C-alpha cells in the first residue's frame, strides 16, 4: 500500500498537505504570529507585509493567525461528525446484516427513507428545528449521513458472512466474538476507511458552508467558513480578504478527495 502511494505523486503531495495542515492546526500557538482575537482597528486592511503575511481583515486581525487557529474547529468538528456517523452507521449496518429478517427489513426501510431526502436541505431543516449552533450542525450531519454507512456496512456484512473463512470459523465452532472482531470488522473497516476519508472532505465543506451561512461556528471564533462570511461583508471594499480562507477550503477539500 505504501509503495503504491509513493508511486502516485499527486496523492502523496495531497497527503503531505493534509498532514501538514493537521500538524499546524494542533500546534497553532507555535505557528501563529499574532493572537487571532487581537483587534487593531487602526491597522485594518493592511496589505501583505512581513508582520502580517496575509494582511489583516476588517478589524485589523492577522489573517494568517486566524487561518491557523481556524484549522482546529474545522478539523475537530469534521472528525466529530465522522465519528458520529461511522459509529451509528456501523451499529445499524451490523445489526441489519447480522440478524437479517425483521430487524433487517425495519432498518433498511429507515435507511431508504433517509437516503431519499436531499441531504443539504434536510440539514438545513434540522438545524432550523434545533436552533443555530455548531453542535446542531454536527447532529444534523450525523442524522443525514449515517444511512450511507449503515447501508455500506450491511452490504459488506452480507458479502463477508458467506465467505469461506467465516463459514470455516462457524463450522469448527469458533466464538462469535472472534468472527466479529477478527474476521468481519477488519474486512469491513478497510472499505469503511476509504469512504470515510472521501467523506471527511465533504464534512469540512459542510461545516464551512454552514459557518459561512452563519448557522455554524459563530464570530469571532476563527473558522474558515466563518471567516469567509466576515470577508463577504467587506467584499466590495476589500476583496483580498476572501482569498485566503477560500483557497484554504478548496485546497483541503481537493486534497482529501484526491488522496
Amino acid at each position, binding site marked *: 500500500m505504501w509503495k503504491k502511494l509513493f508511486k502516485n505523486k499527486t496523492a502523496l503531495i495531497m497527503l503531505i498537505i493534509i498532514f501538514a495542515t493537521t500538524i499546524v492546526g494542533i500546534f497553532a500557538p507555535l505557528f501563529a504570529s499574532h493572537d487571532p482575537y487581537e483587534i487593531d482597528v487602526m491597522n485594518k486592511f493592511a496589505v501583505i507585509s512581513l508582520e502580517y503575511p496575509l494582511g489583516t481583515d476588517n478589524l485589523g486581525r492577522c489573517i494568517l493567525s486566524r487561518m491557523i487557529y481556524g484549522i482546529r474547529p474545522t478539523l475537530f468538528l469534521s472528525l466529530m461528525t465522522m465519528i458520529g456517523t461511522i459509529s451509528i452507521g456501523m451499529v445499524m449496518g451490523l445489526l441489519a446484516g447480522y440478524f437479517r429478517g425483521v430487524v433487517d427489513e425495519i432498518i433498511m426501510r429507515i435507511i431508504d427513507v433517509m437516503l431519499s431526502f436531499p441531504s443539504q436541505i434536510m440539514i438545513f431543516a434540522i438545524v432550523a428545528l434545533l436552533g443555530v449552533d455548531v453542535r446542531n450542525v454536527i447532529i444534523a450531519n450525523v442524522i443525514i449521513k449515517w444511512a450511507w454507512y449503515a447501508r455500506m456496512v450491511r452490504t459488506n456484512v452480507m458479502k463477508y458472512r458467506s465467505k469461506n473463512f467465516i463459514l470455516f470459523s462457524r*463450522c469448527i465452532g469458533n466464538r462469535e466474538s472472534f468472527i466479529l472482531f477478527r474476521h468481519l470488522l477488519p474486512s469491513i473497516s478497510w472499505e469503511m476507511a476509504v469512504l470515510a476519508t472521501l467523506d471527511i472532505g465533504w464534512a469540512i465543506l459542510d461545516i464551512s458552508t454552514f459557518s459561512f451561512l452563519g448557522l455554524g461556528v459563530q464570530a469571532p471564533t476563527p473558522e474558515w467558513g466563518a471567516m469567509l462570511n466576515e470577508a463577504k461583508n467587506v467584499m466590495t471594499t476589500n476583496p483580498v480578504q476572501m482569498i485566503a480562507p477560500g483557497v484554504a477550503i478548496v485546497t483541503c477539500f481537493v486534497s482529501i478527495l484526491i488522496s
Partner: protein
Amino acid sequence: MINLQNINVSFRKGNTKSIFGKERQQVLKDVSMNVEEGDCVGIIGESGSGKSTLGCVICGLLKPDSGKVYVKKPISVVFQDYSTSVDPRFTVNDIIIESLTVRERRDGIKLNKDNEVYRLLELVGLGQEYILRYPHELSGGQLQRICIARAVALQPRIILFDEAISSLDAHTQVQVMDLLRQIKLKYSLTYVFITHDLTSVTYLCNKVLFLYNGQVVETCNIDGLRTIKNEYAKNLLNSIMDVPVK
C-alpha cells in the same frame, strides 16, 4: 458418525425482493445418508445438484427445512475455493492458530502452539519458511495444503471436503490425494468427499453416493460400481471411465 434422515432444503427463488416471493426452489429432496466411522464417502453429482448445500447441512452451517441431522462433532471442512477460504489478513501462523485455539478451548488443554504449527506444516509437506507468509504469497496447491493443515489442527473426527481438489492442477491433485490418504490413516478419520469427478472418488473412497437434482439416486460400495442400476449414475460412469456397465 453421520446420520441424515429425510433432509429437505429449499431456497427462496431468485434475488428479486418481491412481497410475493414465497416461491421456493427445492434444492435437497428427502436426502438420507449414513456414514460409519472410518468411512470415506464420496458424494458425486453435477454442478447445481445440491452437493455443497448437503455439505453445509452436514457442517451445521445450514438448518434443513425438515429432517433429522445427527453429526458427530468435532467436524472440520475444506472448501473448493481456497482463495476465499482463508482470511487475507491472516498469516499462515494465524490461520492454523485459530483452529488450535478452538481445540484448546474444546479440550480444556494448553498446547505448545509454535510446535504444533511446525508439526502441522510438516505434515502437509510445507517447510517452516511459510509460517509468516500471507495467503496471496502462496500458490493454490500450497494454500489448499494450509487449509488441510488447519482442518487437521482441530483434531476432528470427520473432515468434509467440498471439491477440495477440483481446482488444483492434475499433478497437485494426485499429491494432495496421497496426502489425504496418509492423514486419514494416521488419525483414523472419517471423510466426506464431495466432488464431480469420479476418478478421485475411486482413488479415495469406499462408498459412493450419487446426487441428482437434489435427490440421492444411488448409494453403493466402491466395488459395487459395476452393478449400478440407476440410469443417471450409469451414464455418469460410462462417460467418465471406460468401465463397461451392464
